[in-house]
């Protein structure tokens, strides 16, 4: 259900696992990739740090909240840590539900909350050296919309 790992993952395999329950009508997946550019600078690498123990708990709470709000059949959250490079997969959220709107909403909700509540930090390598990535206001706003409705 939740995996924090250094190694890569296989979205096709995860998709198959999520599609097994009868009654599932919709599978929505999000895969985040390392981009080769951020704030106008070329990015050569990305190092992901996390808070072992707390990260898993934070993700479980986000999943529990999603399961309380929507009809959720199956979910898988994978987040990689350690040294990554442009094009590498960073994060995966796969959701199975009976209906499409619920599957989309759960997947977006989990990604929004993961971005603002789960203890991960990115340090990127540019030509000017290494720098910790700043949190973005747009991510905060994206997470806050779930309480506006």
């Amino acid at each position: 259900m939740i995996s924090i790992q250094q190694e890569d993952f296989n979205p096709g395999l995860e998709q198959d696992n999520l599609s097994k329950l009868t009654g599932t009508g919709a599978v929505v997946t999000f895969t985040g990739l390392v981009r080769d550019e951020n704030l106008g600078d070329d990015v050569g690498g990305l190092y992901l740090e996390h808070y072992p123990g707390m990260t898993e708990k934070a993700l479980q709470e986000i999943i529990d909240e999603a399961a309380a709000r929507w009809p959720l059949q199956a979910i898988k959250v994978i987040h990689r840590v350690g040294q990554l490079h442009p094009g590498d997969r960073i994060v995966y959220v796969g959701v199975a539900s009976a209906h499409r709107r619920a599957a989309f909403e759960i997947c977006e909700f989990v990604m929004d909350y993961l971005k603002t509540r789960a203890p991960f930090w990115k340090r990127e390598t540019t030509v000017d050296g290494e720098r910790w990535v700043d949190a973005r206001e747009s991510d905060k706003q994206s997470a806050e919309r779930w309480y506006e409705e």
Partner: protein
Amino acid sequence: MIKILFFAGYREKLGCDSLKLNSGEYPETLEALRVKLSEKGADWQEVLEDKRTLVAHNQAMTRKDFTISEGDEIAFFPPVTGG
């Protein structure tokens, strides 16, 4: 004994990823702990007084002051940037 953790940019800035304080060495509340740690130097003061600094008490995020208990794990870290 309580355990205090620092992550990411704060860990680097302070040159410290964790420290332990024995019973008697730590104060009663989070706010008092902030004051005590700030005395370790200008970098410490900056980190502990930064309004964006997030605090986790026993691995759960909190925005309020709390009473410190023996065995607690308290973490200070910058806004998260995963995903």
